[in-house]
């Protein structure tokens, strides 16, 4: 009959309060781990996603909007650039690759992005990773009404090579805005775990010359993705200064990662609030461990006195209570991992559906080590006061009525 056995018995004898308290620890721990892990992963992922480019050139406006539109395929574009603007930057000696994009249409809510074949031929969306097609597909012919579909869209819309579809006008799906043009799917991308999976890629001229679009803007583009030459260390800085400070016509969003990092800075308060909420929940849960065990000390006086009369030392009793408190916390944390799993799975799913960005919910994060440690330690700490009370139990007084 070890201390462990005594603790187990005690936990079972107070099942309801054990479960309730453990549940609140589970919530605190699960929430804390989720906030931390999701924030870190999403920040790392979002600031790391750049589709293989260094900068985005677009109409005058917010850098963030430009990046969200051109890289993450979210938001409306801040405006159009002329074809000559695209040619100008393409000719810039510091630019290795400039890829134009045009948006403005969708297929049942999934964005159509017009571009040129260089987007797939010359780009590495991540170091060493090029876009690839699933077996049986081909890249679109830039002169034909052909489409390459991102993996996520293909699965959701059940699009396969050979299928045809009509695009719809605008970025938001409206049945009434169907275009007359018919596109045929010639390829489906292999999953890249980037926003490219969430869109349908068609030739640039397809968007530019879609029926109903302004013919005067037939050569305009929504944005230009820019890759700078490797040796031009300060080129980005100088181009940033020229377009953004010297100029007032266009916006040069560079570097892409920093633009996203600034977004996370701006919303940093939100995850601090969430973290604070989880600290509060943890505090309340810890306090409820203290209260629960402390309040049970009165009814346990006799039990403690009996154990002492059987030869248990004061320190043994003290340790048993501490261990009981820590055990409740540990049980809670075990369940907390389940809570974490649920939260991050849901969040990851939402993130993927909304942005195409994939985070790995079960990737190891240091918070998975320190948050259980801290919460279990807090639980043990909460057990100190009741443990002291148990330590001080007067054996003679709490044994049977005297004869």
């Amino acid at each position, binding site marked *: 009959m070890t201390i462990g056995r005594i603790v187990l018995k005690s936990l079972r004898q107070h099942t309801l309060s054990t479960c309730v308290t453990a549940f609140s620890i589970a919530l605190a721990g699960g929430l804390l781990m989720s906030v931390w892990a999701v924030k870190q992963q999403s920040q790392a992922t979002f600031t790391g996603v750049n589709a293989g480019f260094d900068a985005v050139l677009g109409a005058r406006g917010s850098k963030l909007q430009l990046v969200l539109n051109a890289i993450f395929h979210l938001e409306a574009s801040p405006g159009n650039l002329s074809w000559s603007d695209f040619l100008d930057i393409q000719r810039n000696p510091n630019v290795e690759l400039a890829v134009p994009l045009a948006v403005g249409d969708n297929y049942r809510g999934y964005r159509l992005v017009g571009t040129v074949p260089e987007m797939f031929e010359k780009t590495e969306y991540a170091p060493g990773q090029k876009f690839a097609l699933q077996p049986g597909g081909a890249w679109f012919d830039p002169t034909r009404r052909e489409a390459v579909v991102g993996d996520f869209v293909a699965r959701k819309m059940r699009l396969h090579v050979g299928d045809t579809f009509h695009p719809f006008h605008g970025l938001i799906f409206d049945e009434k805005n169907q275009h007359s043009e018919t596109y045929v799917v010639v390829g489906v991308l292999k999953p890249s775990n980037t926003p490219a999976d969430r869109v349908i890629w068609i030739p640039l001229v397809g968007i530019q010359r879609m029926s109903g679009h302004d013919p005067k803007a037939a050569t305009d583009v929504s944005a230009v993705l820019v890759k700078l030459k490797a040796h031009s260390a300060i080129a980005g800085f100088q181009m940033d200064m020229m377009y953004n400070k010297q100029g007032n016509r266009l916006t040069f969003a560079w570097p892409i990662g920093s633009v996203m990092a600034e977004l996370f800075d701006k919303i940093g308060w939100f995850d601090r609030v969430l973290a604070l909420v989880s600290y509060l929940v943890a505090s309340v849960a810890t306090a409820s461990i203290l209260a629960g065990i402390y309040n049970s000390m009165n009814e346990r006086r006799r039990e403690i006195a009996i154990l002492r*009369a059987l030869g248990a*030392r004061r320190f043994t009793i003290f340790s048993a209570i501490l261990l009981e408190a820590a055990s409740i916390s540990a049980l809670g944390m075990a369940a907390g991992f389940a809570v974490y799993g649920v939260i991050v799975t849901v969040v990851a799913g939402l993130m993927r559906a909304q942005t195409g960005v994939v985070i790995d919910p079960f990737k190891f994060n240091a918070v998975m080590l320190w948050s259980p440690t801290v919460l279990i330690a807090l639980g043990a700490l909460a057990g100190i006061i009741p443990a002291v009370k148990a330590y001080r139990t007067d054996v003679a007084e709490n044994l049977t009525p005297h*004869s």
Partner: protein
Amino acid sequence: MTLRTRPMPLLEISKLKKSFTADGANHCVVNVRTFRLAEQAQVALEGESGSGKTTFLHLIAGILRPDSGRIAIAGREMSALEEPARDHLRATTIGYIFQTFNLLQGYTCLENVLLGMSFGPGADRPFAVKLLERVGLGDRLKHYPRQLSTGQQQRVAVARAMANKPRLVLADEPTGNLDHKNARESLKLIREACRENGAALLLVSHDREVLAQFDNVEPFDRINHNSAEEPPV
């Protein structure tokens, strides 16, 4: 000529005093000049409620520390020991049977008996089972105290008291909560168990029927010279 040495008593008490303070006055509850109990002896102390018998047993068990005096068990000075050592001595040497059994309600019969040995010699499951079989509860190992009759609960308490193979068993009004039939059987069981395990028995009671079973009955107030209220020191 052979020298005959007297065997050392198992329990030896001299000039034992214990007082409690209440309402500003000091109450001397125990004042025992001398008391001895031989190995394997079975002695009953007769005394009414409030005579200090329980305090006396608590002092012997090391649950309370005396104000002055000496208690030696099997040659070891219980009174001179610090609390953890007293606890250990109690766990390894003394079995205690309480009037109200004092079984732990959240533990099964077997677990209650295992508790009786866990803090001393250590858990010995087969021995615990054997003890329960000896007291006639071999088929109730997994029962909880609330599922037993009072007589059965007392038998579990007896088994528990024997669990650490004690040299001395202290029984405080062990039949106080039992009816006549159970009381007789319980007392018989206690005495037999002590005899079988080689333990001495010191039992306190005010029940004449119980006392009548003992050859050796000592009126407690003959050994305990506690006075009426003394002024505070």
